[in-house]
């Protein structure tokens, strides 16, 4: 092989008492796609932040083209040709889409040429095959659209090393395909790509080599051809994992929720579905299929223009989230950074926030021991990786933050639970755990609506699947008739 472009040698990084990285080495060669695997909290994002100058390593060296360098900040990394798509989209809500893509570029001349910028931005988005108005404000973009903008941002730079930290977490199959096509073009041009994902099928469809981290330590690097998903997972968790979890079949109970002709101008149109107690109804579709908007309308964050919602046989009009919670609904948002968590507050406080009144004693004082107990129960059940539950939620790794959001809403014991991308960024082990919890909740008679871009997950967990495309309900498939092909065909608008 030729010389590596970028080499990390013996990198260590500590946050307080957490050893996030310990003596990790990794080499990236020109024209390779290198997958980085590891459980939640294994240190993947931290390694990337060291590569891009966001964190300074405590020990170790970074070598670029055979020379040792120090990267002090992201701008320097950019000058060295290293760009990264970070795990949490970093959007400027007050700027428009095109500006978001180009704002970080140091070399676009001394004057902003708006027309040229719009044109170039539109070109990049066209290469990704995404229709997104480059002049529209970035405020209110869905998470998937934000991720697309992040990807475009990195692609617009002239890079030699492209790092992607879970770029596909909220994208669906079609966008992922486009992204991978582009990645392969870049690879052919000699760019080296470091790619993080918890979706094994993606990793094995694109990676040339696979490196596994566990607990901040280097475990192995192998050519992808010598790795199987099983062996990779074994390296990641250090033990053998059971197969994919699937929902247990059970006779559904009473009708909980019935939605008829739900419409909202220009957003979604004529949505019909039922949820019975003990059922999981999956929502599948591509990015922009408006699944989240339907959920937001049900939960009273947006208002529908037409249609009816019946809850337990009573027609209801839900106008505010407070009302929705009172009626026994809970909504786990896809956007944990902005809507899901209070980052500086402790994990415990975050989990018990919606149910705080249950922890008050008869003087109205919150019993911290009971709070802690709840938090620790969830920590154990979902294996939230943290030394203790009093740490600020913001110090957790991305996947572990997602587990805290889930815990928070599971703890409210709702009758109808709406999950929006519940396993986004969650590693394989914990994913099975989350699926098992969803199943248990259903067994206990909870109705569950699950929006997910992870098709295997939707297929394994749903009793019924609603497939949406551009705000329209394309198909409603029962568990027995749903296959990967049928769902994809409906989502892409192909009718047989």
């Amino acid at each position: 092989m030729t010389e590596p472009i970028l080499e990390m040698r013996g990198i260590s990084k500590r946050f307080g008492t957490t050893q996030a990285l310990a003596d990790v080495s990794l080499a990236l060669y020109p024209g390779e796609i290198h997958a980085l695997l590891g459980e939640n909290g294994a240190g993947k994002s931290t390694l990337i932040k060291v590569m891009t100058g966001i964190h300074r390593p405590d020990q170790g060296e970074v070598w670029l083209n055979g020379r040792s360098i120090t990267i002090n900040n992201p701008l320097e990394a950019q000058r060295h040709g290293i760009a990264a798509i970070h795990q949490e989209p970093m959007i400027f809500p007050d700027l428009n889409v095109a500006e978001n893509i180009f704002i970080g570029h140091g070399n676009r001349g001394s004057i902003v040429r708006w027309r040229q910028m719009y044109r170039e931005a539109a070109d990049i988005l066209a290469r990704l095959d995404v229709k997104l108005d480059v002049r529209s404000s970035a405020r209110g973009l869905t998470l998937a659209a934000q991720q697309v903008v992040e990807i475009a941002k990195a692609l617009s730079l002239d890079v030699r090393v492209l790092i992607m930290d879970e770029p596909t977490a909220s994208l669906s199959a079609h966008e992922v395909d486009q992204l991978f096509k582009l990645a392969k073009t870049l690879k052919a041009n000699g760019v080296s790509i470091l790619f993080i994902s918890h979706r094994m099928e993606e990793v094995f469809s694109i990676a040339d080599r696979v490196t596994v981290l566990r607990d901040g330590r280097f475990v192995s690097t192998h050519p992808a051809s010598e790795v199987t998903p099983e062996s990779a997972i074994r390296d990641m968790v250090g033990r053998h994992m059971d197969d994919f979890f699937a929902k247990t079949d059970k006779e559904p109970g009473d009708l909980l929720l019935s939605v008829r002709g739900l419409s909202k101008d220009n957003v979604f149109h004529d949505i019909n579905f039922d949820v019975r107690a003990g059922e999981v109804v999956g929502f599948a579709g591509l990015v922009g299929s408006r699944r989240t908007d339907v959920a937001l309308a049900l939960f009273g964050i947006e208002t529908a223009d037409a249609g009816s919602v019946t809850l337990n046989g009573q027609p209801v009009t839900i106008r505010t989230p407070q009302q929705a919670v009172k009626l026994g609904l809970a909504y786990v948002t896809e956007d944990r950074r902005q809507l899901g968590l209070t980052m500086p507050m402790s994990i415990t406080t975050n989990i018990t926030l919606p149910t705080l009144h249950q922890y008050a004693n008869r003087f109205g004082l919150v019993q911290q021991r009971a709070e802690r107990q709840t938090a620790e129960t969830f920590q154990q059940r979902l294996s939230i990786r943290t030394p203790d539950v009093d740490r600020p939620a913001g110090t957790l790794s991305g996947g572990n933050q997602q587990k805290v959001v889930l815990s928070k809403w599971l703890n409210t014991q709702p009758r109808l639970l709406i999950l929006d991308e519940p396993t986004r960024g969650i590693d394989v082990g914990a994913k099975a755990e989350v699926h098992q919890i969803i199943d248990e909740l259903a067994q206990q008679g909870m109705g569950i609506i699950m929006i997910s871009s992870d098709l295997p997950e939707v297929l394994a967990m749903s009793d019924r699947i609603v497939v949406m495309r551009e705000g329209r309900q394309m198909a409603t498939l029962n568990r027995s008739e749903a296959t990967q092909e049928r769902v994809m065909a409906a989502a892409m608008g192909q009718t047989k």
Partner: protein
Amino acid sequence: MNSIRRTIRPEQIREFILVLLIFAAILFFGSQIENYYQPRTFTRIASSVAILVVVAVGQTLVVLMRNIDLSVGSIVGFTAYFVGRAIVNNPELSPLSIVLLAMLMGGILGLVNGIIIAYGRVPAIITTLGTLAIYRSLLVQFSDAQTIITSALPEWLVNLPQVNAFAIGEWELKLIVLIALVIVVIFQLVVTYLPWGRRLYAIGSNPDAAAMSGLPVTRMTVSAYTLCGALSGLAGFLFLARFGNITVVAAQGMELQVVAAVVVGGINIFGGTGSMFGALLGTVLIATLEQSLLRWRIVSEFWRDALLGLLILLAVATDSVILSRLRAFWARGGVEQVQIEN
């Protein structure tokens, strides 16, 4: 609907409302005050706008990036006084070097603010609250409580406020007003067409993301404060020219007017949105109220500041209620475009 959403931004609606408010204020005072509709009234308002808006432009730069500069009033007073002193001692100095001296003086004071905030990591509101007091104290200390008086100033300076750029009949445009307008236009172009200007919006919009994207946040903070100081210095020069008599309390409390103008003009106090044109409109409204209330006998002097405070509260409150709704409405229009092609 969509085409309307694309051509008009919510901020423009807000600016339009502001124009209506200015007219409403003029009509109201016209009905309350005798001989209100005279060129003199408007010339006076315009001169007051000229000084305020130069400072408001600087303040806008700072506020756009989610900061604030409370020391501007002290900087204006400081430069007005010491530039005055310099002219009195060296009457041969050319007008241009005087202007440059004023901007340099203000720029240095602004640079100090910027360095403390960017490198010392002291919150902007605390830093500039401190320098507000410090700069004023320096002025008091080094002036020996003497005042600059008009008669000691060269003629060209004393006459400057009366110089017309051009006049149509009784309606005239003063040179200093023209200069102020040119500054507004220049900085509107700066924040629209220079990468430096666009980055102000980005930093104010999401400071974490700005740092992560590699934007030079520290350098930008220093340069924005330096510019704000330099513009305040220029305003100090205009202040000297307009009033001639400068005491140690000159321009005291001006920060309230300037922050009011900026906030009323639609610059989000949390950064990220607003324009120089908005700041100009805000200044015009504030100056109109100021000058008109002076002549409206029903209202005592003490109520004027209260009215300014009320305006700030109203502006911020309407911003967070009305504008956020408008924005949500607009944003949804934007998201509609998110579709996948096959």
